């Protein structure tokens, strides 16, 4: 492997299938399952792309953000909908931190006077 200055390279997204060059049986299970997850179902493909976009921001995966920004547009979502999806992710992340404040309060209640 040649030395590279960054951990993240946008070209690497296209190379995702290379993960199947070893243990292709596991990769096949993953990619088949992945395709089934994103198929039209009780949720539309567009709704799933917006959920994926939100999750991509929650897990802060640049590959996923690129892939699902494109996919959401391709599925007919617009920038207002995509921005709302990102706010949902941000709200859950922020709320998740804040709600743990109850644990803090429990500890303080137990230890304090």
């Amino acid at each position, binding site marked *: 492997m040649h030395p590279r200055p960054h951990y993240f390279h946008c070209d690497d997204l296209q190379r995702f299938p290379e993960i199947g060059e070893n243990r292709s049986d596991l990769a096949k299970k993953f990619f088949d399952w992945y395709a089934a997850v994103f198929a039209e179902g009780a949720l539309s*493909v567009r709704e799933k792309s917006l959920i994926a976009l939100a999750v991509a921001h929650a897990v802060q995966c640049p590959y996923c953000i690129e892939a699902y920004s494109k996919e959401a547009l391709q599925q*007919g979502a617009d920038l207002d909908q995509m921005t709302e999806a990102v706010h949902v992710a941000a709200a859950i992340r922020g709320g998740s931190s804040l709600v743990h404040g109850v644990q803090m309060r429990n500890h303080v209640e137990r230890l304090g006077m």
Partner: protein
Amino acid sequence: MGRRTLPSLAARESPLSSPATQLARLRAVPIDREFPEALARAEHWPLRPSRLEILQINVGKVCNQTCRHCHVDAGPDRTESMSRETMEHCLRALAGTEIRTVDLTGGAPELNPHFRWLVEQLRSLGLHVMDRCNLTVLETAPHRSLVEFLAHHRVEVVASLPSVRALGTDRQRGEGVFEASIAALKRLNAVGYGDGGSGLRLVLVTNPVGAFLPGNQASLQAEWKRELFRLHGIRFDALYTLANLPISRFLEWLEGSGNLESYLQHLVQAFNPATVSGLMCRNTLSVGWDGRLYDCDFNQMLELGLQSSIGHIARFDVAALENREIRVARHCFGCTAGAGSSCGGAVT
């Protein structure tokens, strides 16, 4: 992201106003295979017409808008407009055929001074007439009575609206277009368009606002019906999703935004053999403002005339046109990508 609409390529004397330059720019992009090869793999080469069902008449390039994706390079600064004499040639041609549908396009077809006369003549022949309407023209002072005129003559209105929100609509079509479009749709609804039972059919057409293909037509239609009614109380009958072909002003935008290569390559990769049998060039004939004939409106704008001795509507001969080969080039990948794209929306 630039949001300004500019004058037409022709008015700016842009090199891209030349069809030859447009075709050369497309040829310069590295792609995996040419369109004839893709058709051959789908066992459709050479591409030939099926039964001629629709005459699409482009009555001119004059428009009150200058949309950033326009494949016609239409605008207020254009002057090309079909004459009454050429329209009479169209009417004579139609009277002798089995064609039942006439698709009027432009520019804004309503800005042709003979538009109302042409519609009356076509309807008197008992033909189904479609008007490809930009909506805002219906809100301009001299043309507000068109709403009642179109309803009276039971013309199908096929109206452009890229988004259910102002953001995407105005970016593609110009500042204030969304608001005027909503006002026009409400007036069309008021006279019975989009009612379902009235027989006054109102179709909306959406083109992507950017370098990507349209979403699933059925899914978007359901969402648009819900959202346009919830937000504005507007009803319509169907939504057509159309891809943007990489020519004219959309080509200019693709080049300027650095998206040309990836967009064309995406169209090539997304070639769908199942779209070929339903391509509009197979059942539609396109007439230019000057009466010249083409396989489609896109070939018309690229000045790729019919491969036939019948080059003008004045010499129209349906039998002689049946066995021609349809002219194709790289822009054709825009109609065969994904679910396909035609004047009637998705193909598959």
